[in-house]
């Protein structure tokens, strides 16, 4: 919908005035102003740690602001708990998946507003309604009875959306819903968003992918260091470069520069032969040479993560071998892989990557402890010093390496996981969705970093749902479909359409 | 706790009448016993306190009852630090408390050992012993008499806390006495001196043995639960012998309409005896009823069998559980 069609003088649905939220030692929001009108898609932009998620939590009643005011249709409101926001008509999809892993899909969708008579749940009805919602979201394949913890991250995101839709919200807030989705699914999401806005529902949309903002957004508000630096800009009228500059205070070359592929005679560092994981994938051959970046493309659920995890020894291979520098690794042993010089940035940073309650530096050094130890005694000063260097190199904010990782924003958490393996000087680096939730600036920094590593002779494998990213970053691309390699070839011989065709072939039929 | 009931008048003989009852110099007595987690043990502590209340010249310091020897040792250490005149000590485990009792004696404190014996004669001035082995003997002998001539009689035993040495002594005595008349313990279970555990143990026991002729239950407090289980099962082909000698049980014996025919007294007056003796010792007095000038080194209480015939004699001194 075009914002010009709306009457700008009408009372906004929700307006935010000078909201301040402080955490111990951090001012997460230092005075935020913006307003949302009925029927528009209002995009929130900002770097990692700018305060977007915190703002969302304030709007959803999960945080109480220290200062400032919220107005709902002109009336001042105060949300003391999520329930208050929900009953006002605000629904939210939080960045960190807010699902209950042990419950079924249907139970999650209706959690908190269960369909019931006299306290008894109406399971059949809930199941039907859930199926309708999932159909709407283009996922009839997800069974309402499936346990949510067993779904892939992408499907969990779909459940999260179904849940937000299950309440008739007048304002729907989505915190990076597209981070784990592939392009197809993002398109479906946008279709749903458009349906909602034509019904007059307002949507606040957060994403680090600027092209999405262009496609779906009506107006945009930019946050920087917890403050609004621009608000209510009509999307159609601003240049991407300007947005980036507003967010970061600098201009960023957001493109993949040309890259010289590694010397053809570079030795093979990682050699995978006939790798198979029980029932999930099989017959995967993969050779990565020193200085080479290999990309794994495929649909969500095609088994890319499992290949990486099996190479790393985190899952037991049912067949096949993994060699590093010609030495075969013991099957199913992470320790052996790490000692041989493999590092893995896992897909789910919260559950697989981070020690959330531990300090940043401890998360960074956890895989290199022996480097800081003499006779088992740690030199904590050296640890902190090295961690601080990396934190600064990766621009993690805030920089204090003593703070618990839990208190960092999502994108910054991702950087901490990366820093762990940078510290170790790996021979092989396996990156599973390395830029998920990472902002524009940091993303290009990560790209540069990956290239630098490759130039130093590290063998890199990258999994990403962002085809552009795979093509831009990798020298060679493997396409996975239903657990099998269906294509292997140099990245420059492929383009986005060709990859999508390869990826979809068969499933479309 | 308030102690209205049964400040045992029979026990006044211990202090005697006459001169010994006259107030003398002030005596501070420390008292330590295992946790009062069952009737008999609670009665011991209560009787000690009641006894102390009788004398205007006695100040009692009773410490928290505990089943942790480590804690009990430290409590005795505290009493030593406080320089009490005497310590009446019913140890959770006699051997384990011996070192600290020795320490107290070395510090010039009169230690009275109650019930569970130390393993050094130097650790106490007087030992007041119940007779656990004798208790088993009494119960066994009674059972033998009642079952005279029934060679294939089935005898069951419901023991108390099985890990305690005293339980072992009781069971040993019981087995030995039964052996004398050619019987043995056919079924044995153990409870924990509590009503509930007694019920549980007995319920299972009654299933294990389809026919029983006699049951000896070590402890009358858990006996309440045993009774409940028996009642529940509707069985009545056997008779039962109790242990410890609670007032309830004695009344039941007196009434004579239940399965309970007898109980073996394990005097709960030991605590009171200990207090009285401690006072006499500190004040330098003797037992006025006997000729001996000094208080004897060791007093062993007997473990008489109470039946309907002699119950009146014991009823008054019995503890309410």
């Amino acid at each position: 919908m075009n914002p010009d069609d709306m009457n700008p003088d009408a009372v906004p649905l929700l307006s935010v005035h000078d909201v301040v939220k402080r955490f111990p030692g951090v001012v997460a929001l230092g005075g935020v102003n913006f307003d949302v009108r009925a029927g528009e898609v209002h995009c929130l932009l900002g770097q990692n740690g700018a305060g977007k998620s915190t703002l969302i939590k304030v709007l959803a009643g999960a945080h109480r602001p220290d200062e400032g005011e919220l107005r709902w249709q002109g009336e001042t409101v105060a949300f003391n708990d999520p329930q208050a926001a929900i009953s006002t008509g605000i629904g939210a999809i939080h960045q960190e998946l807010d699902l209950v892993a042990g419950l079924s899909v249907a139970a999650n969708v209706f959690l908190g507003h269960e369909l019931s008579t006299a306290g008894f749940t109406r399971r059949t009805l809930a199941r039907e309604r859930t199926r309708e919602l999932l159909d709407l979201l283009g996922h009839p394949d997800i069974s309402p009875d499936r346990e949510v913890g067993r779904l892939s991250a992408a499907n969990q995101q779909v459940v999260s959306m179904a849940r937000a839709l299950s309440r008739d919200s007048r304002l729907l807030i989505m915190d990076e819903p597209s981070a784990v989705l592939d392009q197809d699914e993002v398109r479906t999401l946008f279709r749903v968003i458009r349906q909602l806005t034509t019904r007059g529902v307002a949507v606040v949309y957060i994403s680090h992918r600027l092209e999405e903002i262009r496609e779906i957004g009506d107006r945009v508000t930019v946050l920087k260091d917890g403050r609004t630096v621009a608000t209510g800009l009509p999307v159609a009228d601003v240049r991407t470069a300007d947005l980036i500059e507003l967010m970061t205070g600098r201009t960023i070359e957001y493109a993949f520069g040309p890259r010289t592929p590694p010397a053809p005679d570079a030795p093979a560092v990682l050699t995978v032969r006939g790798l198979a994981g029980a029932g999930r994938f099989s017959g995967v051959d993969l050779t990565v040479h020193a200085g080479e970046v290999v990309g794994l493309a495929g649909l969500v659920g095609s088994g890319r993560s499992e290949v990486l995890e099996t190479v790393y020894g985190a899952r037991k291979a049912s067949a096949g071998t993994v060699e590093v520098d010609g030495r075969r690794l013991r099957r199913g042993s992470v320790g052996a892989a790490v000692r041989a010089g493999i590092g893995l940035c896992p897909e789910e940073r919260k559950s697989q990557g981070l020690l959330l309650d531990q300090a940043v530096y401890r998360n960074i050094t956890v895989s290199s402890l022996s480097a800081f130890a003499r006779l088992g005694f740690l030199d904590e000063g050296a640890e902190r010093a090295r961690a601080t260097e990396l934190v600064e190199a990766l621009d993690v904010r805030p920089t204090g390496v003593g703070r618990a990782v839990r208190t960092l924003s999502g994108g910054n958490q991702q950087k901490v996981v990366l820093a762990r393996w940078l510290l170790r000087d790996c021979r092989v680096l396996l990156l599973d969705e390395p830029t998920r939730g990472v902002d524009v600036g940091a993303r290009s920094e990560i790209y540069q970093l990956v290239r630098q590593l490759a130039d130093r002779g590290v063998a890199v494998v990258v999994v990403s749902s962002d085809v552009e990213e795979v093509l831009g970053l990798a020298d060679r691309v493997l396409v996975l479909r239903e657990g099998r390699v269906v294509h292997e070839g140099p990245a420059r011989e492929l383009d986005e359409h060709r990859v999508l065709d390869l990826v979809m072939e068969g499933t479309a039929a | 706790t308030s102690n209205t009931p049964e400040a045992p008048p029979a026990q006044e003989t211990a202090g005697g009448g006459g001169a010994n009852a006259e107030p003398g110099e002030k005596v501070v007595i420390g008292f330590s016993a295992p946790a009062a987690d069952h009737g008999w043990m609670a009665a011991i502590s209560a009787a000690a306190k009641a006894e102390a209340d009788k004398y205007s010249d006695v100040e009692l310091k009773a410490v928290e009852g505990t089943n942790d020897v480590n804690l009990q040792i430290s409590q005795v250490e505290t009493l030593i630090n406080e320089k009490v005149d005497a310590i009446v000590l019913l140890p959770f485990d006699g051997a384990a408390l011996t070192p600290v009792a020795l320490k107290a004696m070395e510090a010039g404190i009169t230690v009275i050992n109650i019930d569970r014996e130390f393993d050094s004669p130097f650790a106490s001035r007087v030992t007041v012993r119940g007779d656990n082995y004798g208790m088993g003997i009494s119960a066994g002998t009674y059972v033998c008499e009642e079952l005279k001539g029934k060679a294939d009689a089935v005898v069951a035993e419901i023991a108390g806390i099985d890990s305690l040495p005293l339980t072992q002594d009781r069971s040993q005595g019981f087995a030995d006495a039964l052996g004398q008349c050619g019987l043995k313990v056919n079924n044995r279970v153990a409870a924990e001196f509590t009503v509930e555990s007694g019920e549980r143990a007995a319920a299972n026991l009654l299933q294990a043995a389809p026919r029983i002729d006699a049951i000896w239950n070590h402890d009358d407090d858990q006996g309440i639960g045993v009774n409940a289980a028996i009642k529940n099962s509707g069985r009545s082909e056997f008779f039962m012998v109790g242990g410890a000698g609670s007032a309830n049980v004695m009344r039941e014996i007196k009434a004579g309409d239940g399965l309970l025919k007898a109980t073996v007294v394990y005097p709960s007056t030991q605590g009171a005896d200990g207090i009285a003796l401690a006072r006499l010792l500190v004040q330098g007095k003797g037992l006025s009823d006997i000729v001996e000038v000094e208080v004897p080194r060791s007093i062993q209480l007997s473990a008489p069998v109470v039946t309907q015939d002699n119950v009146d004699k014991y009823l008054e001194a019995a503890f309410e559980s």
Partner: protein
Amino acid sequence: MSENTATASPTGRAAGTGIAPRRASALLGSAAGRNTGLVLALVLLCLAGVVTAGDRFADVSNVLTILRLASVIGVVSVGMTFVVTGGGIDLSVGAIVALSSVWATTLATQAMARDTHWLVMVFAALAVGAGCGLVNGTLVAYGRVVAFIATLAMLAAARGLAEIISNRKTQIVDVPGFTAFWDTSPLGVPMLVLVFAVVALAGWVVLNRTTFGRRTYAVGSNPEAARLAGIDVRRHTVLLYTLLGICCGIAAVMIIARTTTGSATHGGLYELDAIAAVVIGGTLLSGGRGTIAGTVFGVLIFTTLSNVFTLNNLSISAQAVAKGAIIVLAVLLQQRLARRSGG
């Protein structure tokens, strides 16, 4: 895991039709799969009982004895399942049982019960239990005291109070209506067992078929997510502990009925027994997963075990060693089976 096998086709897209029947069988399979190990352990135990003790084991009255013994701790364990599933723990259950049993059998309460109706005693026990649970829950939810510590404190306080009130005497019940009622066996099933069955059934329904149960899982699995979904997590926590308190009150009434006494020594080490039954039944101590059926099996396994031991006249120490070994074997068995059924 078995669910995946059924619903997740390799393409990740199951045909729309055909899902329902597959799902049903998968669900059934998974429920059985989750508990097969326990069922098997119980069956093996019973077999051992029959082999070693023959008719003395496989006898109606023996089975009823086992069930009667299981009922009191069973009721507590059902309540405990809720608290543990909701992410909490309660060490004070035994002490609450003791306090409730004492309170319900004081001379005053009994006098009132004789004057009016024996239900007075039941109300007293339930009220005391609910009150203690309420205090526990409030400390945990609003005072943010760690559950372990809050309920440990309640353990000390409630037992101390029970001792003070009862003056450490065993209080014998003398309310004819009360004993008469509990002595009945409708349809041949002792009243105690009946109460246990009703509580277990009600527990199952509440945990699996009501919003309350659904929210209990959510609160235990991911309290933050539950909060964000608009659930009042703290109030729910208070309710959970109160519910368990009420179960303790019921257990107190049952134990009064069984022993015809109230005593500060009742309920000794129930906390350990109940938690053990709950955990062996498959409820996660970290919360979010729990089944009433598993708990009931857990209770039955423990009770049957000690019954078989007694029937065989095993020494108490040997029992302890055997018990340790059997527990571990049962759990390992359960695990292997669960893994197999998961594929």
